[in-house]
């Protein structure tokens, strides 16, 4: 399972309101609207490269979320979208 790293070229400015966040990336000039889960995943990966499993474990613990398999699926989907956006890239597979 790979760890995911934030694209070092990003220059981000965030605004968070309730369930949604809006972020501006000065490198691309693009503006995106993220739901809370996506913003949380981005915030965690920004701190350090993470695998989706470790994100799932952390979210379950800190946010008190249950149904870990559903949560992992949702996080996998988020990371896929961030990858398509060019925001994250995989590092070498962690053992």
């Amino acid at each position: 399972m790979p760890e995911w790293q934030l694209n070092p070229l990003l220059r981000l400015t965030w605004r968070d309101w309730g369930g949604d966040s809006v972020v501006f990336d000065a490198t691309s000039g693009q503006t995106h609207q993220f739901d809370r889960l996506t913003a949380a995943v981005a915030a965690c990966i920004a701190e350090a490269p993470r695998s989706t499993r470790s994100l799932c474990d952390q979210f379950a613990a800190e946010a008190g979320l249950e149904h870990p398999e559903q949560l992992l699926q949702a996080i996998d989907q988020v990371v896929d979208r961030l990858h398509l956006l060019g925001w994250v890239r995989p590092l070498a597979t962690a053992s």
Partner: protein
Amino acid sequence: MKLGDLSPSAIRRRLRGDGLCLRTGPFNYRIRSPIDSVASGLGLLYEQVPLVDDSEYIDFTITMARGRGLRRWFRPQVRFEVDGETPFEPLPEDHAYPMLEWAMNWCVSTQAHQYLLLHSAVIERDGRAVIMPAPPGSGKSTLCAALIHRGWRLMSDELALINPFDGRLVALARPVSLKNESLDVIQRFEPSAVLNTPVGETFKGKVSHMKVPEWHLSRIHETASARWVVFPQYQAGAEARLEPRPKADSLLELAQNAFNYSLLGPSGFRTLGDLVDRSDCYRFTYSKLEQAMAVFERLRLDAQTSGGDTGHGHAGSDKVPPPGRADDGNSP
């Protein structure tokens, strides 16, 4: 000196000569044209607008010229020229006045990047402004035209100018563009409204412009802070309904209605983010103008009662009270 201080022949003379220089909001225009409808339209709609001395800096020099060659006489055309360029295709000569208004908007929207520019109406009351972003077909102009005859000050019917340094809105207060059915609606709603002779068969249908009442122009230098962002949508037969719109969603929609959001980069994002922070954001569906007036009056009174202007969103939707004239006067 105001445009109304000139006689119609003096207006025509200046337009055919070195140009008629006037100031609308923060911009000085020099306008030249040999076409009579331009002169008569300006004379009617810009009567109270201040003239600008020749020695002052002119932001935009616009010429509404006659067509070239045969097009001066055969199916005559009008051409818009600015700074030696002709950015638009010619139109039939009787479209000259609407084309002038579009040209004046175009100058601002393509060049005035010292502001964040939104395609939006802006009205103000008690120092609090409503921004109404304007996708086509939203009914924004009709709503704006009605509200400014019920106590709201017109800041702009087409272009919101936001100063990125302090986030405040700057007024343009130019004539309100109305088209098709809106012309009849507004004339019934406010018989005293002064409208230019409509021009038919334009790209947008039948078009006219409504004169801005004088007291709005006397306060044109007053800026205002945004308090509400209302996304209007006319829907035939619908009861007036105001529904809170999430701020993140609203920011993206505002950015999509901006002319130069991308150009301004981080500054544009910060400006819109601050604006959305301090504003309550709504979708607004309506069909009857009197009901719409009541909704806006309720917004105004709620803001006065609460006193704070920190942009707290309202939970749940807002039902409109029984329709009624909220304000009989046009004065502030």
